[in-house]
């Protein structure tokens, strides 16, 4: 078949891109070669719209061992231990086949982590669905949760945290972002860069089938009416094989047989082989007759582009083939020598004994397009002048109850109870808290992790929103007593070819970047997902931050459950009553205008560091950061977690109660302090110029605010826990 411009366009390439390919090659590519280009030049693999902006992110730091550019980022956690972690999106496939889409998302990100020699020790996920009124939402949610659980539970990695939101902007494009954290010895990290020529290239794992051909290009396109036809690109996951692959790879990694290793993710054999060669500035020769195939008669094009799951590509040291083969055979996995490294700087593909394709590696990687797309600046909206009369008919307790049972605030236990969160015996903070925490096996150390995003804030003002999510992630680390270390980010946006969307992207990224720099919270890995758009309707900008924190001594971990009666609860940070974009404004008043709460990075850092030092001194009995819903929701969550009540002080001065209790000002924490320690704690806060006030005193039962609230923990618990159960089980 000779390749025409039309065929190239059907492959998702643009006219000028096809022309450029012909220019580079000085001829028309054949169909296999076109396949290689379409896979490597699409948005998903080439980052052509995002590359120039991603460069802004701070990616280095004292603890950073490996920043972006490898399968996952790596940070140092002392004593020759390191943490490998990354987040990745699987949005498009999950909308089409929620179970398999989510499952293979989890499988893919775990491979990215164990490719580097790390044993996965925790999973997290950030999932976003359309309105709860939307007909599809329930089945999508059920499918995604089953898929995430089905895969992670089977492999035996605890899922320790996540985030779930509902918003109608996801009606036609759900988001499924999966994150994995792994543990590795610092001197045993494996990289994807190939070195040396004439080294055997090994294929291991499952056989190659016709599944998922063009998955990467699907992730680089908007959905349209023909979505049904795109369906065959969904892969099926096999967690059992992944578990075997994990064990086999880790077994092979105990010595130095491996020169370079790369999972076959998006664009399968194509991107893995090209990345290895490109990083090593080498060439690679592949003999596709040797590739283990599931179906007969697969063409080179199909073999190169298949996205069959649970496969790895390895460059071995000469002479290690037999040893490696034995290990993979023991685990019942396919093993084949399918090629070798060369010094040609080309990828050369043989099939049926004949050369089928030949392209300089550089054309596929370094020469891939890079665009500086037009983007539009988004102004900070004016403050929404909400008519205070609207408050008059409201009762504080009713508002609290309504927020506690709203889809975005209610307990997500229905979801995380379906994830095995305790397997591996090191989970010391389960889902439901500010961050999940797992111990570093056999040591006193522990790692905290959380995923955060705030699409409403990012939509209202991307720059502020971008800062906010980093700060929220940072606060979540502090709240469990962990020192924030580094982040990974998954940037979910609409169509980058539209100026507005591109503007959202650029400014969110600027915000993320500023906050990360200020807080010394570098970005070590990440992923971009554009084209989350169906029939011209795009999602709200939804960058997701996956944060990692470190505890030297896990016994000092804190949680948000109140511990005992008659302790003082302090609010750290200033409460001004910012209502615009709060859940109170959007859900209760139905007011959607106005700016998100402002971020003050100085206060953020100062408040956080001071709280962390108080935690490390042992003064803080429990702690929770104040986020969506404001103070009253935050304190209720502490009460529910600890099954202890509180008597709340009336705020002093002429403040409006609704604004005080439901405003979403940033940089705040609630901390529980014993009366004996209160003076000491206050003096530390004062010395550090941290604003604080006394919020209330814990008591045996009931949440009480004089004249306004007197309600039992049980009642609030029920309201908070049943909404999702009822929604899903009825």
């Amino acid at each position, binding site marked *: 078949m000779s390749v025409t411009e039309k065929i190239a366009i059907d492959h998702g390439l643009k006219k000028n891109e096809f022309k450029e390919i012909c220019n580079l090659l000085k001829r028309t590519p054949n169909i296999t070669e076109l396949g290689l280009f379409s896979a490597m030049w699409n948005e998903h693999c080439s980052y052509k719209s995002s590359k120039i902006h991603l460069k802004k992110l701070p990616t280095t730091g004292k603890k950073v061992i490996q920043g972006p550019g490898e399968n996952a980022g790596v940070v140092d956690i002392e004593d020759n231990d390191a943490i490998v972690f990354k987040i990745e999106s699987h949005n498009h496939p999950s909308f089409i086949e929620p179970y398999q889409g989510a499952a293979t998302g989890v499988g893919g990100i775990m491979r990215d982590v164990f490719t580097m020699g790390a044993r996965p020790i925790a999973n997290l996920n950030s999932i976003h669905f359309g309105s709860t009124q939307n007909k599809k939402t329930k089945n999508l949610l059920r499918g995604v949760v089953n898929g995430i*659980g*089905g895969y992670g*539970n*089977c*492999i*035996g990695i605890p899922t320790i945290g996540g985030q779930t939101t509902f918003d109608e902007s996801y009606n036609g494009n759900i988001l499924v972002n999966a994150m994995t954290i792994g543990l590795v010895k610092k001197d045993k990290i494996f990289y994807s860069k190939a070195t040396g020529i004439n080294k055997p290239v090994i294929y291991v794992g499952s056989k190659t089938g016709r599944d998922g051909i063009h998955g990467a290009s699907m992730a680089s396109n908007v959905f349209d009416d023909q979505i049904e036809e795109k369906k065959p690109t969904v892969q099926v996951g*096999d*967690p*059992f*094989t992944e*578990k*075997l692959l994990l064990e086999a790879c880790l077994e092979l990694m105990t010595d130095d047989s491996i020169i370079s290793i790369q999972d076959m993710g998006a664009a399968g054999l194509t991107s893995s082989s090209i990345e290895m060669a490109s990083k090593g500035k080498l060439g690679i020769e592949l003999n596709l007759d040797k590739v283990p195939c599931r179906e007969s008669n697969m063409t080179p094009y199909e073999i190169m582009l298949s996205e069959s799951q649970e496969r790895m590509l390895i460059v071995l040291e000469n002479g290690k083939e037999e040893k490696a083969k034995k290990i993979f055979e023991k*685990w*019942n996995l396919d093993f084949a020598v399918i090629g070798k490294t060369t010094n040609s700087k080309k990828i050369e593909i043989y099939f049926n004994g004949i050369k089928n394709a030949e392209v300089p590696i550089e054309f596929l990687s370094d020469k891939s397009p890079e665009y500086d797309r037009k983007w539009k600046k988004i102004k900070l909206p004016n403050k929404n002048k909400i008519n205070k009369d609207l408050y008059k008919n409201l009762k504080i307790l009713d508002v609290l109850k309504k927020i506690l049972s709203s889809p975005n605030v209610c307990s997500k236990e229905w979801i*995380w*109870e*379906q*994830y*095995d*969160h*305790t*397997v*591996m*015996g*090191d*989970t*010391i903070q*389960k889902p439901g808290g500010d961050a999940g925490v797992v*111990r570093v096996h056999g040591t006193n150390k522990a790692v905290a992790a959380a995923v955060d995003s705030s699409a409403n804030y990012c939509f209202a003002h991307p720059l502020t929103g971008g800062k906010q999510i980093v700060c929220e992630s940072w606060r979540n680390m502090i709240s469990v007593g962990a020192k924030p270390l580094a982040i990974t980010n998954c940037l979910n946006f609409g169509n980058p070819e539209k100026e507005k969307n591109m503007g959202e992207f650029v400014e969110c990224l600027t915000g993320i970047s500023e906050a990360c720099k200020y807080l010394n919270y570098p970005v070590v890995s990440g992923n971009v997902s554009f084209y989350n758009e169906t029939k011209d309707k795009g999602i709200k900008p939804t960058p997701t931050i996956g944060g990692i924190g470190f505890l030297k001594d*896990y*016994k000092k971990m804190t949680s948000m459950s109140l511990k005992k009666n008659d302790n003082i609860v302090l609010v750290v940070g200033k409460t001004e009553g910012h209502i615009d974009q709060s859940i109170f404004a959007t859900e209760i008043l139905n007011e959607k205008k106005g700016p998100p709460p402002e971020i003050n990075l100085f206060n953020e850092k100062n408040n956080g560091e001071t709280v962390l030092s108080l935690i490390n001194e042992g003064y803080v009995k429990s702690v929770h950061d104040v986020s969506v819903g404001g103070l009253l929701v935050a304190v209720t969550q502490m009460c529910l977690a600890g099954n202890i009540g509180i008597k709340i002080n009336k705020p002093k001065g002429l403040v409006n109660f609704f604004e005080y209790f439901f405003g979403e000002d940033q940089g705040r924490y609630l901390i529980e302090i014993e009366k004996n320690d209160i003076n000491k704690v206050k003096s530390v806060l004062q010395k550090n110029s941290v604003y604080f006030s006394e919020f209330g005193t814990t008591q045996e039962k009931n949440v009480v605010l004089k004249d306004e609230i007197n309600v039992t923990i049980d009642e609030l618990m029920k309201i908070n826990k049943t909404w999702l159960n009822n929604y899903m*089980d009825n």
Partner: protein
Amino acid sequence: MNSSVIVFPGSNCDRDIAIALRKFGFKNKMIWHEDVELPKSDLVVLPGGFSYGDYLRCGSMASKSKIIQSVIKFANSGGLLMGICNGFQILTETSLLPGVLLRNKFSKFICKNVFVKINNIENNYFKNIKKNVLNLHIAHNEGNYFCSGEQMKEMQENNQIALLYCDEKGEVNEKYNPNGSSKNIAGIFSRKKNILGMMPHPERMIEKYLSGEDGSLFFENLLNNLK
């Protein structure tokens, strides 16, 4: 005391149980499913996880593995054999224990703490145990115990019911049944009480920093009984 933990492809609580056994004083060996011989053991454990991916039926394929013949021989000669979660499923699939573990009642995987009442203490597992209600952790998709009426009758007559889902105080009631098990059954014995199959994971509850500590109670007591 010597224990052996059998490792199948897809087992994933094998490390957890080995750690628990060692913590409480067992010498433990990990035995690969393709081995034929079982080393001399005072206790053999079939661990939790997803042997063979839980494909077909949970435990079905593990029950055909090479090592299983030796395990059956060991049990038939009176050796202590314990199956936890997937291990319990393997025990029913090999017919060493009666009945079967079906899909949970609401077709959902469940991971949480539950209370179980110890129903029979005249055996090596629970003799002398200090509590009669334990707070343990479950994590399974197929823990819904089912057997025929006849089998149930026989089990009751032989006092083979080991653990029952209950509340904090030991009240056994359908309300506290997390998965739809017949009669709230969380664990059962063989006729001779040397084989124990149970859904809860005591190995996940061996430190106060984990989900709880009642697992420690179980293992300490087990070791003392074997001494």
